[in-house]
């Protein structure tokens, strides 16, 4: 073998090895060597609410405004759609504004489909003496309520729902009586 062939073979092999070394060189994520926190400043995001379909959006908006405006306006708005109901003071107990805000947060979580979050918030409100929170807690565990609100995969707990309804009834929330009866009827 001539010296020229040796030189050519050597150069060619070196090039091949260099190519392969380049190809197989381990890829190192830049994040490994330059860690930085994911978030630099607060970002506020509003909870998403499932879109309303096949309903009169204008009427719903009026009803929502009526709810915020007060019981009298709410009655008027509801009556226009044949949805009148007796606003009740049952279960209204003297609780702190902080407890009421917890119940409101729990109800907002319930409306957004976050049942686990709703239960935790309502439990805190109930522990602070809010009887209405007990009734809503029962709803948050009631399999019938979960199904009607569109929960998927999440199983209710009829026994826990019954327990919360019973506690709400004992605290003076009369609406709990109907819930307990409905739970019994479902089991029958």
């Amino acid at each position, binding site marked *: 073998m001539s010296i020229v062939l040796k030189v050519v073979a050597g150069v060619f092999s070196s090039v091949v*090895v260099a190519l392969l070394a380049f190809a197989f060189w381990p890829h190192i994520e830049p994040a490994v060597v330059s860690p930085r926190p994911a978030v630099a400043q607060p970002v506020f995001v509003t909870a998403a609410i499932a879109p*309303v379909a096949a309903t009169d959006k204008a009427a719903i908006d009026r009803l929502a405004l009526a709810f915020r405006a007060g019981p009298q306006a709410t009655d008027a708005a509801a009556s226009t759609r044949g949805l009148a109901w007796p606003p009740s003071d049952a279960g209204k107990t003297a609780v702190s504004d902080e407890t009421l805000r917890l119940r409101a947060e729990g109800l907002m979580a319930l409306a957004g489909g976050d049942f686990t979050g709703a239960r935790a918030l309502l439990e805190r409100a109930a522990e602070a003496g809010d009887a209405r929170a007990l009734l809503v807690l029962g709803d948050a565990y009631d399999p019938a309520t979960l199904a009607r609100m569109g*929960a998927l995969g*999440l199983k209710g707990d009829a026994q826990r729902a019954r327990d919360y309804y019973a506690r709400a009834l004992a605290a003076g929330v009369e*609406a709990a009586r109907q819930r307990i009866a409905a739970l019994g009827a479902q089991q029958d």
Partner: protein
Amino acid sequence: MKTRVRRSSCGRRFVLGGEADRRGTARRAGCAALGLAALTLIWAPLSAFGDPTPPPGMVPYDHPVFQDGRRVLWHGAWRSGDEKSGDALASAAATPLKIAPGVAAKPAAAAPATTPAAREYSVLADAEDSCAMRLAGEFVAALQADGAKGRVIAGRTSPTALAKAVKSDAADLAIAPMDALIGADEATADWRDRAPYIARLGAETIEVVAPRAVVDIRELAGRPVGLGVADRAGAASAATLFSRLGVAPVPSFAPLASALADLTAGRLDAVVAVGAKSSKVLADFGADGRFHLVAIPWSPALRSLYAPVRLTANDRPNLIGADEKVDTLGAPRALIALDAAPSSARADHVAALAKSFFEGFDRLLGPDNDASWRDVNLAAAASWPRLRAAQDWIDRKVAAPNASLAAFRAAAAAAAAANGGPEAADADRLYDALMQWRDAGP
């Protein structure tokens, strides 16, 4: 010249003897080994150059893609935007990914895609997040019943890591920290549509361990706090939490065990542990009574990102007194699809996995699986794009809300939009709206 010919002749080996012959044999063996190695080195890239046609069902990448340090040349046609029809998906042959030595990929026409069930998929979970790793394993096991073969990849799922995963085809799905994703609004803006979520999963508890002298989490502003391993899901959630609370500690990034050692030595003023429910090092920590869990009070700023959690002495006997309760938070995780932009073929492929997950979800509710599956409402929404096929499946299952339910939700949305969170009066307004819906019947 004659001598050289004789040396290269194998026949001479048996004729010649003695020390010189042994040296010659060893030299010849060395030459042969070197020759074979050189041939192999030269043949491999040449064979790849000579084979520009991808295997059936695969198409070449148009950009360099690496997995575990190796360059991947081909990928399933589902990633190509051209093949979207269900017929193409159904008719394709199952072919595993080919990993070849590094040569430039040559463009070729997209081949038919693999069927979702036949092609192996992968779920990325954070290696530092034992809860997410477990969920990913159980997810793969559940989908196996439908014939879908999957595997779990232990990696990183912080927003910065996911940004790379979306662009580098690292996995099909990921179990990611939803709070960090939503919180990193600007950082995720250019790829969030390519990483839609399929479902919100359970929350992982956030625990802030600190000396008993620290009673309010706001006291940690400007003080050294261990957030976990840098660029991991836990550290991302912890950073998002402090960002939401408006508290700016001096972050320190280290594994939980060494962070707790630093806390004991006084080098850190607090350690944040996310998803450390089954951590033995945290369970054993604090037996001397010097440390406790700092409460994280609920505030409207935390809504939509976190869920309230209450811990008792049963959860952390070393860090919570017998009669105490500590309010803290749960950081939600989500199952997201990677590189599945709307109308892409990848989205179609992942849609089959999403459908299998939804329809077989009850398999995950067994007693042997993680309890957090039982907290999952598949229909729960998040402030993040959802995979179209997942949303369509949910819409088919859930009836449109009636007027009273829609009114309850609208009232809740109005209360949520109020500055400073809901007022005390909103509690009764929302309660009355709920009662009206409840009493209105189906």
